[in-house]
């Protein structure tokens, strides 16, 4: 043993160990704070951090993580947190934590000091940031569809205009499509009627032939026929007559089919009259500036822009999860490594651990109100937080719920599955009683204003398998007040403002999906129906009278011609149907006559044949 080994190695080692023991808490705290600040872009502060060596673990009494977008508010803070690190795996440079106990998780609490840091954080590193321009991100992909939706204002008339309108003048000016249709229908009836008459005239010549056949058949008297050749000849004549009737019947049926087709077309065309008249009425209302308040779209105009803005923000959270929760790492290929680095060979593991794993984070709720009334106290569990799910074969799951003094409550369940080749994310969240200080409304040129003091309740469900996306959300806003930036522009805006004044809640249903490649957005709300319902009440009898007046005038303009054409159609079709029926009966009668005569002759033939046989037998036995 080297004599100075004790003084030069062992004593310094003891001193170093002692220093580590005494200062490790500070060093770990400073390291975690520095790392956290670099990652979040805002102050990360630990209080009462203590590193225990047996079992190896860390605990702290308070952690505050400032919001990078608002330095005076915490993104979240915790009270007592304890966890133990698997020391065996730590020796293998793996950070495995079985259970992390979090006594309280408080979201959005107020800070007593400014938590912003001077150096601006990388925008893409935080969810909800503004840098969502990456070409492959959901935010970027959806921006086009969302933008189009925001721009797509409903075709709302600039204003109702005067309700005291001159309906006669408007009807005169209106290009009434119904009248054109009636004229067209009349022409069709007349043309068809001409063709029918020609066809019926052709059938008249057949009538003569039928009469001749009838005479021929009737002239045959079976009783007068005494010889077999005479009877057989008469049967042949009747059969020829039947054939002639059938030929006439075939020709008749062909003509009848054509005529029936014409009749059907005319009836269908007549059936369109009411629809065309309804379209005329709609155009007449548009000319009169009468709004169709039952059409959807006003609500989209009101809340569309804000909803789209919120959707973009939430999509950035999805992008953040995709970027930061990585897919499984693949086995390294054989390489020719740089000098002195070598290649690491992997061997089968009895129990594989990823580089980093927290099997369970158990968060218990709390009642500490020092963070302000607006802070949310959360509780729940987050499981399998890891950097490599291909090793754990378990997705990250999070189930959180929380409440705050003001009545806000939320529930969140999320799954981030990277165990397979195609990543899969699923989110289910509900948020209730959220006070919304200000909710912008409308556009600059229409209903520009804001909704204040509203309460918002939302439920959201989103599924993100691979590059597909399907999210639906329902948001209810209630208890709000409206205020507008300027005086109403036009009667319609005035009406809608009056309506909104008496509406205290509405629901917006939102769906955003790209399952067939392109992002699509559907936005529906019960506000349209409410506006329509209330508008009727606000406008009352005047609105109804104006509408009825227009309808009466239009109906009056159409009624005369409509009655005339409908009578013409009815008469002509009834007439032709009657003639066709009569002809059908005639052919039927003649065919019956021929059949009856043939039967009579056949019976006569049988009888005659029988008499002849008896005569022969009598001659034999005489």
């Amino acid at each position, binding site marked *: *043993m080297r004599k100075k080994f004790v003084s030069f190695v062992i004593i310094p080692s003891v001193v170093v160990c002692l220093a580590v023991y005494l200062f490790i808490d500070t060093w770990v705290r400073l390291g975690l704070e520095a790392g956290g600040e670099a990652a979040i872009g805002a102050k990360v502060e630990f209080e009462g951090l203590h590193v225990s060596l047996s079992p190896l673990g860390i605990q702290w009494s308070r952690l505050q993580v400032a919001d990078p977008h608002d330095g005076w508010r915490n993104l979240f803070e915790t009270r007592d947190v304890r966890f133990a690190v698997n020391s065996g795996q730590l020796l*293998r440079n793996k950070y495995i934590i079985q259970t992390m106990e979090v006594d309280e998780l408080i979201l959005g609490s107020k800070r007593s000091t400014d938590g912003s840091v001077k150096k601006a954080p990388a925008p893409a590193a935080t969810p909800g940031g503004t840098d969502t321009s990456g070409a492959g991100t959901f935010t970027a992909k959806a921006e086009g569809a969302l933008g189009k939706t925001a721009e797509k204002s409903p075709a709302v008339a600039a204003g109702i205009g005067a309700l005291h309108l001159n309906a006669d003048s408007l009807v005169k000016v209106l290009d009434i499509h119904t009248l054109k249709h009636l004229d067209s229908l009349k022409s069709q009836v007349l043309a068809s009627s001409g063709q029918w008459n020609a066809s019926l005239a052709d059938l008249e010549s057949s009538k003569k032939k039928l009469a001749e056949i009838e005479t021929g058949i009737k002239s045959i008297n079976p009783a007068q026929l005494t010889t077999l050749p005479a009877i057989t000849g008469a049967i042949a004549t009747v059969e020829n007559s039947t054939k002639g009737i059938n030929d006439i019947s075939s020709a008749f049926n062909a003509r009848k089919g054509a005529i029936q087709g014409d009749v059907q077309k005319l009836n269908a065309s007549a059936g369109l009259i009411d629809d065309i008249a309804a379209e005329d009425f709609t155009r007449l209302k548009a000319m009169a500036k009468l709004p169709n308040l039952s059409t959807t779209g006003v609500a989209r105009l009101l809340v569309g822009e804000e909803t789209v803005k919120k959707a973009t923000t939430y999509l950035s959270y999805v992008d953040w999860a995709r970027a930061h929760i990585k897919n499984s790492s693949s086995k390294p290929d054989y390489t020719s490594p740089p*000098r*002195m680095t*070598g*290649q690491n060979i*992997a*061997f*089968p*593991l009895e129990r594989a651990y990823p580089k980093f794993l927290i099997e369970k984070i158990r968060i218990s709720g709390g009642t500490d109100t020092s963070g302000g009334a607006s802070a949310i106290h959360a509780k729940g569990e987050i499981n399998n937080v890891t950097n490599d799910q291909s090793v754990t074969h378990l997705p990250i799951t999070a189930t959180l719920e929380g409440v705050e003094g003001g009545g806000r409550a939320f529930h969140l369940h999320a799954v981030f599955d990277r165990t397979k080749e195609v990543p899969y994310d699923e989110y289910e969240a509900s948020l209730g009683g959220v006070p919304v200080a200000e909710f912008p409304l409308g556009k600059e040129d229409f209903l520009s204003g804001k909704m204040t003091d509203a309460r918002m309740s939302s439920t959201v469900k989103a599924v993100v398998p691979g590059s597909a996306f399907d999210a639906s959300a329902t948001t209810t806003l209630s208890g709000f007040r409206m205020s507008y930036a300027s005086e109403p522009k036009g009667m319609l805006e005035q009406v809608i403002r009056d309506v909104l004044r008496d509406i205290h809640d509405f629901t917006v249903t939102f769906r955003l999906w790209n399952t067939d490649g392109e992002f699509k957005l559907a936005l529906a709300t019960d506000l349209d129906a409410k506006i329509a319902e209330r508008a009727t009440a606000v406008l009352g009898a005047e609105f109804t009278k104006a509408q009825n007046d227009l309808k009466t005038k239009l109906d009056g303009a159409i009624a005369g011609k409509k009655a005339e054409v409908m009578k013409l159609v009815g008469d002509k079709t009834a007439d032709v149907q009657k003639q066709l029926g009569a002809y059908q009966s005639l052919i039927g009668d003649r065919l019956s006559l021929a059949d009856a005569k043939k039967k009579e002759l056949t019976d006569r033939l049988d009888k005659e044949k029988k008499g002849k046989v008896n005569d022969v037998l009598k001659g034999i036995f005489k």
Partner: protein
Amino acid sequence: MFYLKFIRDFVNILRAGQTPAQVAGGFALGTILGLSPMLTLQGALVWLILLAIDVNFSAAGVAMTFFAFFAWLLDPLFHWLGYQILVNAGPLKGLWTFLYNAPIAPLTRFNNTVVMGSFVAALLLFYPVYAGMKHFVVAYRTHIHSRLEKWKVYQVLDRSKMLQWYRRIRDLKVSP
């Protein structure tokens, strides 16, 4: 001056001072450290042995420097050797798997081809280097140095500037 001190001490130690075994032991341990990559558990153990037992430091330092250069040159060979031992040596696979699952063994980075190849090479060279160095020190002290002094070439060189420089280094007083 640190390296000069190492060289002076090494040259001095070849002539007298510590035993040949101490010089050879230091040189052999330095060979292991020089050939192997740093920051491994076995490297730390060798350092501990070097610090704990009474072997020559200067010899270790010279060997470390000398063989570190060789290690850089022979890296592809070590990579190949390590790969053969880790991947193609079938009977050893069970041992590697056991060590891979053991808590501390991975700190040796034994599953790295260069670490494994260089360490095995260093172990194989350990005794030959130790024995060879020991013989060389003994021989230097008994024969080589006196024979060298008799050579005309040595006498010419003895007066040469080069040897004066060597002596200056040998007798150099390095301030602590």
